[in-house]
Structure formats: C-alpha cells, structure tokens
C-alpha cells in the first residue's frame, strides 16, 4: 500500500493502482469515457486529467498513471475543469446532437458529463461525420458518427472476447472504428462492445426504440441458459423483459455475457408461450381449466413404479427437490432422471467414485489463478463462453499455459501459445489415460499418490495405455503426450476443464475418472488454482445432481425409462421441461416410446415437439417469473427472484407440483423458501444457506473430496470405413439446449443446423459452403447445409444438436462417434 493525498484527503491505495483506481477506491469520482475495470488502461479520452503537485502542475491522465508514495493529487481545480470542458467541446464538435432519438440517452457517459460540466455552447465549428450506419446487422447496430474513439469496443473484443472484430481504421481526423475490409460485423455477437460503449455508437438492435433507459426497471437475475451461472440485469418495462443491461460490478464475470445471455432473452415474453393448460380430447389438444388438467394428471400419477419422470435441469433446486419428493413419497416411484442420464454421469458416477463427491472440486475463479490449463475439447468455449472469456484473459494477461486435447480445433486453439493436440474422434479417454501412464513412467507423481487407494490397480490398468500404443490409435504423437504429461505434472498449479452435456456422450464417468486420476496422481487438488472443473450443461445441472434428481437405488435412468415406456412397464410419463424428441439420442426411438406410453404429461413454456405428443400440457414459467435457486457448475448457489409477474394463466413448476401433491393427498410446502430451508438442512455443502444470504453474490457449496484412483475404460477406437466419415455432435456457441430456439437473438445468428467439415473432405465430395448435403448413418438420414471450415480434421464432421427442424438424433443413436456417409 502507498500513502497519497487526493483532494486534500489522506488516503492509501494498493501499489499497483493507477490514480483513477486509487481515487475510485477512496470515493473520489474522476470523470472518464475510456475506462472499464476489466480492460487495461488506455488513455484515449483525456477526461480524467488531474494535477499532481510533484509533476509541477502538469495535467496528467489519471487512468494511466500509477500511484507513487506521497503523491499529492488534485482532481478538480479550475484549470482542470476548464480543460475537461474543452475536451467535451471538442468531442461534441463531431458528435451529433441526436440524443432524442439515440437509445443511449439516459445511460450515456458523454451526455452525463456534458450536463455535469454545463457544456451548453461550443467555441468551435466543424462538420459532423458522415459515416455509413450499419442497419443491416440483426443484433448490433453501428453508428460511427456518434463514436468518441475511446477504443473500449475494440479492446474488449480483443482482450476479453479474443475475437478482434473491431479495430481503429485510418488516422487523425479520419480515424474510425471498423471491421476488416470495412465490411459488416461477422463475429460472435456477444455484444460486449455494446455493453462498454460510452455513447450510442454500438446499440442492441433487438432493443432499438423499444424504451428509454430511464423507464426500465433493473431486475437482477441469473442467466437461465448454461451452467456458468452468469448474473444478468434484465431491463423490464410494462411487465416485459425488453433487454439485458450491463453492470460492470455484477458477478465473477463483471457483467460480461455471451450471445445467449445478452440476446437470448426474447423467449421470456414470446408470443408463442403456452397460456392455457391443454388436454387431449378426441385426438386433439384442447384448452381446459387448470382444475381439469391437474385432476387428470393426478389420477394417472398412481401405480408406483409404472410412473416415471424426466425433468430439465433448468428447474430451480426447490422445484427439483419437490419433484423428487413427490415422486418418492406421493407417487411411490423411483424412476426419475434428467439430461438423458449420461450427461450427468461424469458427476454422479465418475466423480462420486473417484473423488467421493458428485461435484467439481475447482471453481471458475480458479481459472485465473492457475499456471496451466488442460482443456478437453475446444468446445469448452462454445458450451460455456463466459468461462471461455476467463480462459482468454488468463492466457493473454497472466501467461497461463493452455493445453487442449480435442477432436477438432477451435477458438481456444487460436490463443497465444495454445498447444492443441487433435486426436481421432472418441479417443479422448485413451489420451487422458496415456497422459496418466506417462506421468507414472516419468515418475512425476506426487509423493503421496502411491498411498491413495486404487494406485496399484490403476498402474496395472494403465499398462495398455503407453503413449506409443495410444499414439497409434489416437493420431497424437507419443512425444506430445509425454510432453503434455510433463508440463502438467511439473506445473505448480494446474486445472483441467471439460464440458459435459447431452451432445457429449463420450464425456461420461470414464472421462471423469480419467481426469480425476491425473489430478490425484499429481496431487493437484485442494489447492487454489488446481483441480478439475466439469462444466455442466444447463443453468441448474449441478443443482439437479445435488438434489439427487437422477436414477438411484434401483430407479431407471432416462434411456431405460424410454425403453420401459415402449415395452409398457411405464404407463405414465411426466416430463417437465425436457424435449427428448429433439435432444435425446435416437429420435425415432424416443418418439416410439412417447407414442407407446399410456399417458404423457408435459409441462413446458412452448409447444415443443415433445409437448405436441402429450395427453396433458401444462403451461409453466421461465426463470424470469419465478423464485428459487440455481446451482452453477462450480457449485455457486444463487438466488433468482421474479423479474416480471407471470401470466395469470400460467403456473410455475413449483405451483404445479404443489397442487399435484395436494391432490395426491400429501402436504404441499408453503413457499420455495420453506423448501430451500429443507434443502439447506439435507444437502451436503448447502448448510447455513438461506435466501437472505444468497441475495447478493450467492455462496459456494463446499466440496469435500476423498480421492480414489479408479481405472477408466477407454472406448474402443472407431474403425474408419473407407468412404465414410466420423460424425461428432456438440453444442454450438449461439445455442444452449433446445430453449435458445425461442430466443430471437440466437436464431438471427444461427437459425438452423449445419454439418461442419474440413476443406479436404469438402473438396473430395465437391461440396461448397451452404450446399445442401444429405448425411446418413445406419439409423437414418438428414439434409443439412454444409459449413466448410479449416478447424475440422479430415474425416470428421460436426453437427450441433439444438434444432427441432433438423434434429441430429435422426442419425445419432447416442454413441460418441457415429459413422456417416455424405452425399450432395
């Protein structure tokens, strides 16, 4: 800490702080346009000029000058105010005065400063800019005439997002912010540039002219898409969510969001939302009253194990807990599961046997604190973009070494110094085992590793996974496996990340154990910046596991439930929010099962393909309309409160389940809070939590680890047939599950499924970008548009799984790698 004087006040500040940061820390506000706390100091706007006595009265920028001991700083002398007024006059010389029609008005830094410094006239005269305004982009409107050249958009795109879509073009008075070759934006559309723009140069097009900033109610919430658990501020007017707002002090991510979080909110107030319960009469779904619907459902929730349930991990902890309780106590069935069963197997089976806990020991905060990252699949960026931003920042700013094992290259492989090992599809577990074997061979294990149970068995089991043997099957050279093993084991702190989800069947308990073995062998657990983070797919996937909403004690898992529907053992299937027809493997089989089951109940927001097959459809509420808690992938429990009033004709899943419990003769809980109290008392790690102490940033549920080495079985390598390709599924950047199909933002950018292939394969099949190609496997065929990219290795194609129009499950039966043939 250093001591300094700011405006005659004795203050202290950290040694690394700039004058701006020191002043802010001590409650002195210095005006600025080009600063954001996540970005590096830049010094573009010259608004933050201050006087430092030691510098002989010169005016220096506060944002780029580090503090020194004994500095005497004055932030608002008459001279400084005069200088700042001049800066504003010069900015307003070119800035159009169209505040009445600019959506930024009210939230505009330039407008606020102009008002604060009473700049009501201009001593200079000049022409305004006449840059062309980009109206064509569906998400980001760029009006460079309003730009004040603070460079924040270009810097956030480069420093945090790592895309670099925007940059300064030209020099002097002709300087402007633009894209490559002065074309339109063609980027990830995360909207980070919009969030930091101090003026109205970059605006969210979906929100254009919808409301003025000051008329919005700011409602804090937690994003309902992926498991990262990003905090959102929703802009609400007239009970409608109109936009998401930026708050640089929100969450671990400091308000940073991805395209889904920022632009995918439209499903909340969509016209397509279900508004009335529906019951099938004479083969058609007809509107009915809640009483009729609930009575019909309750009458079929009898018969013990002939009732089964599937739930989406987008429900709150309270709802999942209540649902499980209803199934066990009131229905008497233990057949319930979520996420197709295998999507949570890494936690519920893998980690629970290897680490003694069904949760990841590391948190997202560890990403920035580690020295070396080992990421399984470049898809980690696509599945959890905000964790991807953390990786970007860590690698670029802190020099974290990035190692990637993946079946394709991706955005993460483009980071400086990233070491990407591309293996043949489906061989990731073998590669991880080979790394473990190499660690053993090179004697790089932690001192205590040999005393951990299972060591001898693991050593024996790994004998088959010599780097040389795996090199032959995986296509990665033995030397690079050995090198990665050495780097990983010798790094002081190292963290492993891998995504799981319905589109990653290969990321199962075997992978979790293989990863856990690495962590345990090298003793990289229980320390800051070490461990493993299994990135769960949906907003409350970890919560669903913590609540125990999966097949246990002889209950059937998702896929067994569907089979049981088909053979008649399960007579009533209660689906809450899942859309298995699209998202579960082998769509034909799922459809046959849902057709065969006697009675199908679906609670949903939309008329999905699954809901269309139901006997009773109950309209439910989205995350913005209900109260509860979400547990993020790193076990941060966060409180969600209603941002808007729900439609009177809809009920939250909590209310639906409570009403059913009452109808089944049970005692319904009074409120989500009372259920949460029960959760806190009964769930390990949740003790002491309550809605009140979760309000601000949530709280981590600690994970207690008892390590055990478990040999993991690697899937046999897929034999490549000549003339055929290996198809892998995955999650694309713009979507999450099937829900994001109802968000206009994601659908503007990525409206349909595609098949991504390498240039060589495209050339071989004479396929060019956007050609309609037929992809067929042993189970069926679909027609998709082709996307030719340099990132795919030869012989591998990738298809995302989110879309109802062309569901990949027509050709995918749930195996990690599917052999397909392609024809134009």
């Amino acid at each position: 800490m250093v001591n300094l004087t700011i405006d005659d006040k004795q203050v202290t500040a950290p040694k690394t702080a700039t004058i701006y940061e020191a002043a802010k820390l001590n409650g002195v506000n210095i005006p600025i346009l080009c600063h954001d706390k996540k970005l590096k100091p830049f010094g573009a706007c010259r608004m933050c000029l201050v006087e430092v006595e030691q510098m002989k009265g010169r005016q220096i920028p506060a944002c780029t000058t580090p503090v020194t001991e004994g500095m005497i700083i004055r932030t608002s002398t008459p001279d400084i105010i005069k200088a700042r007024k001049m800066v504003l006059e010069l900015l307003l010389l070119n800035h159009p005065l169209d505040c009445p029609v600019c959506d930024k008005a009210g939230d505009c830094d330039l407008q606020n400063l102009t008002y604060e410094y009473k700049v009501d006239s201009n001593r200079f005269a000049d022409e305004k800019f006449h840059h062309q305004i980009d109206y064509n982009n569906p998400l980001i409107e760029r009006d460079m005439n309003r730009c004040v050249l603070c460079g924040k958009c270009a810097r956030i795109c480069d420093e945090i997002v790592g895309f670099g879509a925007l940059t300064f073009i030209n020099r002097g008075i002709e300087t402007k912010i633009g894209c490559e070759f002065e074309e339109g934006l063609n980027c990830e559309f995360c909207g980070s540039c919009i969030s930091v723009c101090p003026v109205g140069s970059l605006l969210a097009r979906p929100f254009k002219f919808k409301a003025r900033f000051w008329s919005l109610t700011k409602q804090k919430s937690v994003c309902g898409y992926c498991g990262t658990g990003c905090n959102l501020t929703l802009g609400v007017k007239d009970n409608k969510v109109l936009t998401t707002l930026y708050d640089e002090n929100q969450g671990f991510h400091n308000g940073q969001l991805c395209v889904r979080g920022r632009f995918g909110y439209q499903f909340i107030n969509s016209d397509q939302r279900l508004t009335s319960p529906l019951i099938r009469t004479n083969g058609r779904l007809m509107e009915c009253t809640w009483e009729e619907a609930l009575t019909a459902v309750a009458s079929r929730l009898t018969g013990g194990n002939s009732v089964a349930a599937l739930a989406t991990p987008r429900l709150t902890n309270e709802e999942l807990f209540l649902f499980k309780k209803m199934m066990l106590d009131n229905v008497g069935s233990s057949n319930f599961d979520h996420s197709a069963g295998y999507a949570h197997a890494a936690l519920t089976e893998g980690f629970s046997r290897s680490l003694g806990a069904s949760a990841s020991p590391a948190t997202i905060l560890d990403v920035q604190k580690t020295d070396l990252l080992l990421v399984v699949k470049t898809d980690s960026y696509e599945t959890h973009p905000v964790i991807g931003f953390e990786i970007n920042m860590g690698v670029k700013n802190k020099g974290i070494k990035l190692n990637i094992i993946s079946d394709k290259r991706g955005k993460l492989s483009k980071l400086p110094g990233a070491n990407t090992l591309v293996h043949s599809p489906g061989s990731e577990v073998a590669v991880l085992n080979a790394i473990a074997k190499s660690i053993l061979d090179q004697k790089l294990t932690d001192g205590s590793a040999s005393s951990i149970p299972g060591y001898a068995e693991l050593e024996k089991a790994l004998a088959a996974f010599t780097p040389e043997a795996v090199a032959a099957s995986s296509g990665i050279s033995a030397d690079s496996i050995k090198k990665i093993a050495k780097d990983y084991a010798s790094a002081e702190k190292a963290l492993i990340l891998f995504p799981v989800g319905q589109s990653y069947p290969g990321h199962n308990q075997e992978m979790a154990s293989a990863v856990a073995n690495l962590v345990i062998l090298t003793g990289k657990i229980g320390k800051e910046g070490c461990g493993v983070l299994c990135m769960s797919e949906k907003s409350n996937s970890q919560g669903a596991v913590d609540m125990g909403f999966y097949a246990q004690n002889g209950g059937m898992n998702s896929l067994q439930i569907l089979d049981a529907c088909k053979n008649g053992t399960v007579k009533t299937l209660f689906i809450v929010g899942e859309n298995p027809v699209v998202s579960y493997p082998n769509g034909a089989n799922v459809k046959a099962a849902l057709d065969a089951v006697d009675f199908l109940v679906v609670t949903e927001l939309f008329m999905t393909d699954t809901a269309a097959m139901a006997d009773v459809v109950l309209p439910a509420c989205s995350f913005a309309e209900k109260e509860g808690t979400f547990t993020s992938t790193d076990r941060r429990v966060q409180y969600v409160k209603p941002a808007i009033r729900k439609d009177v004709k809809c009920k939250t899943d909590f209310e639906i389940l409570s009403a059913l419990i009452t109808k089944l003769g049970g005692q319904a809980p009074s409120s989500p809070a009372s259920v949460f109290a029960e959760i806190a008392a009964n769930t390990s790690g949740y003790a002491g939590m309550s809605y009140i102490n979760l309000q601000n940033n949530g709280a981590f549920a600690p994970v207690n680890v008892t390590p055990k080495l478990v040999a993991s079985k690697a899937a046999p390598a897929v034999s490549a047939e000549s003339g055929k390709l290996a198809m892998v599924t995955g999650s694309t950047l713009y979507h999450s599950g099937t829900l994001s199909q109802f968000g206009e933002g994601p659908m503007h950018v990525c409206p349909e499924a595609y098949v991504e292939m390498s240039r060589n394969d495209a050339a071989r099949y004479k396929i060019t970008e956007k050609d309609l190609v037929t992809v067929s496997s042993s189970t069926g065929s679909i027609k998709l548009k082709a996307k030719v990219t340099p990132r795919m290795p030869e012989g591998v194609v990738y298809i995302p799984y989110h879309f109802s129009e062309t569901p990949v499950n027509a050709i995918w039966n749930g195996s990690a790698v599917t052999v397909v043939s392609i024809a134009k």
Partner: protein
Amino acid sequence: MNPITPIINGLSITLKHLFMKPVTLQYPDERPKVAARFRGLHALNVSHNKAKCVACYLCPTVCPAKCITVEAGEDDNHDKFAAKYEIDMLRCIFCGYCVEACPVDAIRMTGEFELANYHRKDFIYNKERLLEKK
C-alpha cells in the same frame, strides 16, 4: 350616518354598471377570445407532411399526470417516429410541461377548450386526432 346614504351609494354603483359594457358572454352564441398562451387541447406539429415528433419519450417522462403514452417505431429510413401517441384528456391537467420538455417543438397547446364528450373512450386522443389541422 344617514340610513339612506348607503342605499343610494349602492344603487348608484348598480346604475353605473347598467350603462357599462357587460363582462358576461352569451356562450355559445358568443365565442370567447382565447389568449395566445392559453393551454387547451394539444396538437402535434407537422412538418414535411409528417408529425415532427421523434418519439423521444420526454413528454411521458415529464408528465405529472402520466396521461401520455408513446410507442416508438422505426420508419423506412431507420428514423424514429411515434407509432403510437395518445393523451388521456381525463387525466391531463393541462400543465404544459410536455410542450416545455419537447426538444423538437413537436407538440403545442391550442386554444381549443371544448372537450366535453359522452364516453370515456372518446377522451383518449390518439395521434390521428392530435395532429394539427391545417
């Protein structure tokens, strides 16, 4: 004082007024002359054959009676215009703040004061009714 004097004084005032110009107006046969600054019914100013209003929402923001409803739209030139502009005359207190707040001189108050009507819904003036008549 003589008790008759006050009566005579009073009557003389009455007599004087008998020959003065009357202040009452035989409304509706006679029309009042409305002052230029009178705050009557609003009118939306027109320029280049369209309303000048740019839907900046300053009038509904400043309105103390919350009687103005604006909804913005985007026209073919990507400019902002008021797709909906409504004033609820039953709520309006004719304070004129909307006129004062308008940054583009799009709204003014006319001398029109005969606003009586038979139905509540008739007091809601939409954009069509508010556009100035030429």
